[in-house]
């Protein structure tokens, strides 16, 4: 039972990190119907910046998260400006190919020797590890920090989307671009803002990820990116609470199947669950099925 609770906590930690990445996917998808495959690589850049912050520049930990956000948010905006905006009214698949191109670019560019270099790097501990024992279950300070930071950011996102003018504009644009534009909403600005916000979350997710799983390399974004994306789909892509729900499920599935069944087969289990859920609910757990029309 103690083992179960420890696994549960690990799953929660992983799930919350996935949630940060999944939110970026789901917001971008909600607003321009684009699967932003480059998002996982923005997460990678964020992880590297965080790693430089506390391992090389020896900055205080909160400042590392902040710097990482300040680098990645403009990066997301620039990516949108250069690679996606020219394709906004092209067939949707063209923007997807462009996203794959951006993803390749970030991976290979960061692998260059004068950028981050192609090798794995071991990340030293950002914070001294402390563990508390609650009724036999070990809780580390890292788990607490990850969960608290993510909860804080989720509250912030919830506030931005539902309590601010920009958030209202985001919801309007995601509902109908053209009508939003006719109502005087600056659609280009809203889309840029969404990319910036999503990338900021990915950056914070990256820093938290390397704090919990101490290793960085230029292709590290692919798998967490994919898992987070699957989480967003599982919950119903384009729906913010759905992304968080999907990410928490995904984190538990990952950790539990590694802990109880087989760590090699955990991706098989995760993706089988995805396919089964999609067959039963084709638009995800919280997704609404719109009427089909010609």
């Amino acid at each position: 039972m103690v083992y179960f609770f420890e696994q549960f906590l690990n799953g929660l930690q992983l799930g919350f990190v996935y949630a940060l990445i999944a939110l970026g996917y789901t917001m971008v998808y909600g607003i321009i119907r684009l699967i932003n495959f480059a998002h996982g690589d923005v997460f990678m850049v964020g992880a590297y910046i965080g790693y430089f912050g506390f391992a090389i520049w020896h900055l205080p930990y909160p400042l590392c998260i902040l710097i990482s956000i300040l680098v990645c948010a403009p990066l997301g905006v620039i990516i949108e400006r250069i690679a996606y905006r020219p394709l906004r009214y092209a067939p949707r698949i063209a923007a997807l190919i462009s996203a794959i191109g951006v993803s390749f670019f970030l991976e290979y560019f960061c692998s260059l020797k004068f950028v981050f270099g192609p090798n794995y790097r071991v990340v030293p501990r950002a914070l001294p590890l402390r563990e508390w024992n609650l009724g036999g279950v070990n809780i580390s300070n890292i788990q607490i920090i990850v969960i608290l930071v993510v909860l804080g950011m989720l509250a912030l996102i919830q506030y931005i989307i539902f309590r601010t003018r920009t958030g209202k504009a985001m919801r309007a644009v995601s509902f109908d671009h053209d009508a939003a534009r006719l109502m005087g909403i600056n659609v280009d600005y809203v889309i840029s803002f969404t990319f910036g916000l999503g990338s900021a979350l990915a950056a914070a997710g990256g820093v938290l990820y390397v704090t919990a799983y101490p290793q960085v390399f230029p292709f590290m974004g692919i798998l967490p990116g994919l898992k987070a994306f699957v989480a967003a789909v599982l919950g119903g892509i384009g729906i913010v609470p759905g992304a968080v729900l999907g990410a928490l499920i995904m984190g538990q599935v990952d950790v539990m199947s590694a802990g109880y069944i087989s760590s090699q087969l955990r991706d098989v289990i995760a993706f089988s669950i995805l396919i089964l859920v999609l067959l039963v609910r084709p638009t995800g757990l919280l997704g609404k099925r719109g009427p089909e029309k010609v």
Partner: protein
Amino acid sequence: MKQLKSLPPWLDRMLILVAGVAVYVVVTAVFSAVRINAYWARVLDQGLIMALGSLGLSLIYGFTGQFSLGHAGFYAIGAYVGGFVGATYGKGSMAWFVIAILAGTVITGFIAFLLGLPILRLRSDYLGIATLGFGIIVKVLLDNADRVIPSLGGARGMTGTPQIANFTWIFWSFWLVFFLYRNLVCSSFGRACLAIREDEIAADAMGINTTFYKTVAFVLGCATVGLAGVLYAHRYPFLHPTSFDFLKAFDFLLIVVVGGLGSLSGTIATALGWVFLLEGLRFVLGETFLDFRGVIYALLLIVVIILRPQGLFSGRELGILVPRSVQSGWVRGVPPVQAGGERDASPGD
């Protein structure tokens, strides 16, 4: 040209085969004349195998509009089934090579059938993600396959398949499938597929059995890439699960999209160009700048898709691919880029 337009239908159907003989003779003659080195011969074979696999996705996505990101998974199934048959029973005999080809193609098609029946009910992006998941499942299972069948090698990779697929085998496998596809997309089957791609509900309302056509197109496309996999296994001595992960599925997808949806000539030209570009960059860049290969490739991809969002061929075909009777141009299927709207439709619309 007037003469050409009045070709009898049977000759029109066979025209591609005649052209194939001509291309084969010219290419082999040039090869023996200039003594092409083994490396570039290998690259050409790789190009043909990629073109063959891409034709499969072209039918599934380019013509029928079913967004599949699991193509690499079927490529892997074909390669491993073919490789297993070749390595275990074949030992280099031609009869067993043919059996390996049949086994790889049929088993891949059958698995595609089993997967396609439930999964093709999903629409656009959701279908893409479900097939992406399938591709990853296949890859992880292959990583662990040596626990059940040791000769598959698992994460260590598989060796021991006899290397008997030469240019002649690969070229004619490719060309026969190409011939089949050309006649298929110009038939009522192809028109039904195009109708489904343009609007599934409208096609349904017009009495087209959408489930049937989607499933058949999916099975045929996957069996084709299975065939490509068998040839790959018999041409390149080392099979590894990472050669078939979802990045490979992206390769197929971007070849089909950059070539232009609904264009066989675009798919084939882009597949060959893509393989030669990646290998050519190695030579152009040399040892010192080799690291930049990925960067240049990525930038090229972004620039090309921004300049030609509808794809290089954008639904057009070379003249020889269009039957004389229908040269008025229904194959030019992809609608032009529209200003505004259309965001809710499935990708590629």
